[in-house]
C-alpha cells in the first residue's frame, strides 16, 4: 500500500529532512507518525500525496511510483486518497454540502448520488443541521468533522491526516479519533495520522513510526 525504500526528502535540495527511510504500510493498517516539532512528520506525509518531490530513493503509494510521477498519475493517486489537514482546508465560499461533495465531483458522480452520500456523511459526523452553512459559521471541531467527512466521501483506500486534532479541544478531538477509528475498523480504510499527541485509549491495533533527526523508525 505504502512502501518506502531509502527515502530521502528535502526542501530545495538543501539539508535532508528525512534520510534513508525504509518502511511498509499494509492495507487496513492504522499508523501514527510522531516526533517532535520540526522533525519532518508533515514533510513525510506531504511526500505521500506527491506535494513534495523525492530527492532520493523510492516511494510507492497504491502502486504509484512517486519518484517517477507525472501530472496525470499524481491526480489519479490523489483521487484515491482522502486528506485531512490541521487547518481543515475547506473552501470558504462553498457550503458544507459543496465542500463534502468536492471529491465526488472530481470523480464525476451524479448529483443525486453525491447529495445522498453527503447527507449520509453529515449524519455520521453529526452535522446534518449544518448542510447549508459556510465553513466560517462552524467551530474548529465542526470544520474538522466536515474535513473528515470530505475525506471519506469517495471511499478512499487511504486517509492521510496531518495533525487532525492539533487545533481542537478534547471533546472535538475524541470525535475525530472515533471517526478515523470507525473508518479503519468498519470501512477497512488505511489510516496514516501525523500527530505529536497519540490518544491513550485508541482501542484498536495500530503501529507507530517515530521520526528523530531525519531518521524514521518503528516505535514499540
Amino acid at each position, binding site marked *: 500500500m505504502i512502501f518506502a525504500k531509502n527515502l530521502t526528502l528535502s526542501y530545495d535540495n538543501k539539508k535532508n529532512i528525512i534520510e534513508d527511510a525504509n518502511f511498509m504500510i499494509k492495507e487496513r493498517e492504522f499508523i501514527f507518525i510522531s516526533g517532535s516539532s520540526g522533525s519532518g512528520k508533515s514533510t513525510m506525509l506531504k511526500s505521500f500525496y506527491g506535494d513534495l518531490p523525492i530527492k532520493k530513493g523510492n516511494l510507492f503509494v497504491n502502486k504509484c511510483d512517486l519518484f517517477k510521477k507525472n501530472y496525470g498519475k499524481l491526480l489519479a493517486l490523489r483521487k484515491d486518497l482522502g486528506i485531512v489537514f490541521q487547518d481543515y482546508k475547506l*473552501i470558504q465560499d462553498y457550503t458544507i454540502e459543496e465542500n463534502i461533495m468536492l471529491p465526488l465531483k*472530481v470523480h464525476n458522480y451524479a448529483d443525486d448520488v453525491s447529495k445522498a452520500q453527503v447527507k449520509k456523511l453529515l449524519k455520521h459526523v453529526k452535522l446534518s443541521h449544518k448542510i447549508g452553512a459556510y465553513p466560517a459559521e462552524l467551530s474548529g471541531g465542526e470544520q474538522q468533522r466536515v474535513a473528515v467527512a470530505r475525506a471519506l466521501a469517495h471511499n478512499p483506500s487511504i486517509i492521510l491526516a496531518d495533525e487532525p486534532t492539533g487545533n481542537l479541544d478534547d471533546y472535538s478531538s475524541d470525535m475525530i479519533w472515533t471517526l478515523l477509528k470507525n473508518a479503519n475498523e468498519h470501512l477497512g480504510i488505511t489510516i496514516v495520522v501525523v500527530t505529536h499527541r497519540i490518544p491513550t485509549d485508541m482501542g484498536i491495533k495500530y503501529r507507530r513510526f517515530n521520526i528523530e533527526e531525519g531518521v524514521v523508525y518503528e516505535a514499540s
Partner: protein
Amino acid sequence: MKLLKSFLSFSLPLLIMLFMFSIYLVVTKVVVNYKENIINDYAILVITNTPLSSIDSLANIKVKNIEPLSRKNIIKKVKKNLSETSVDLLQKKLPYFNKIYLEEFPTTVKLEQIRKELSGIKNIKKIETFSNDHNKLYSLLVLVQNIIFILFAAVLLLSILLLSKQIKIWFFEHNERISIIQLHGGSLLYSSKPIIKIIVGSALFSSLIASSMLFTIISNIQFIVEPEIMEFIPTVLSLEMEVFKIFLLSIIIPLITFFGLLVKYKLK
C-alpha cells in the same frame, strides 16, 4: 466594488481591442466593396494592329474578358464629316480597339507590371490604363485599412498583456481553492473553473458592448464619414457576420491567453 474593479480590468482592454477590430472590419468592408464596384467599370484599353489574341492573366490577375470595340460603330460616329474616300481609307487604316476587363482591381505596382507585359506584345500599339482617378481613392482606403490593422495589432498585443495580468491576479486570488481541489485529484483545468466562468462572462459582456457600439456607428455612419465615401457604405450593412466575428474574437483571445497561462502553470 472589488469584483467590479477586477471585472472592468479584464473587460475594458478586451472591449477596446474589440472596438478596434470592429473599425477594422468596417474599413475592410468599405475597401472590398469599393474594389468590387470599380472593377466592374474599370477596363484597360489597348489598340492593336490586328485582332487581339486571348490573354489569360496579367500580373497574376486573371483576365475576365476581352471586348473588341466595333470598328463599324467607330467609323459610323465620325462618318458624317468625312468623304467616302476618307471613310474607305479609314476602314483600311483604323486599328483594332480592345477593352481588357480584369477579375480584380490592380494596385499601382501591378498596373505598371501590366503595362510592361502588354508592351511586350508586338501587336499592341498603345495602352491606356485610366487608373489615376480610381487609384487615388483606392490607395487612400488601403492606407487607412493598413493603419487601422497596425493599430488593431498593437492594441491586441497590449490587450493580451493586460488580460494575462488580470488572469494571473485571478489565479492568485483563487490559489487556495485551486490547491485544495488539486489535492483531491482535480485537474488544473477543473480547479480553474471559476476563472473560466469569469472570463467567459467578461468576454460575452465585452462582445455585447462592442457589437452595440458597432451597430450605433453603422446606424449613424452618415454623421461620421465624408459624403464621398457614403456611396460605398449602404451595401456594407450586413452586421450579422461582423457581430459573429466580434463574438468569436472576444471568446478566443481571452481563452487562448488563459490556456497559455494554464500551460505555463502546469509546466511549473
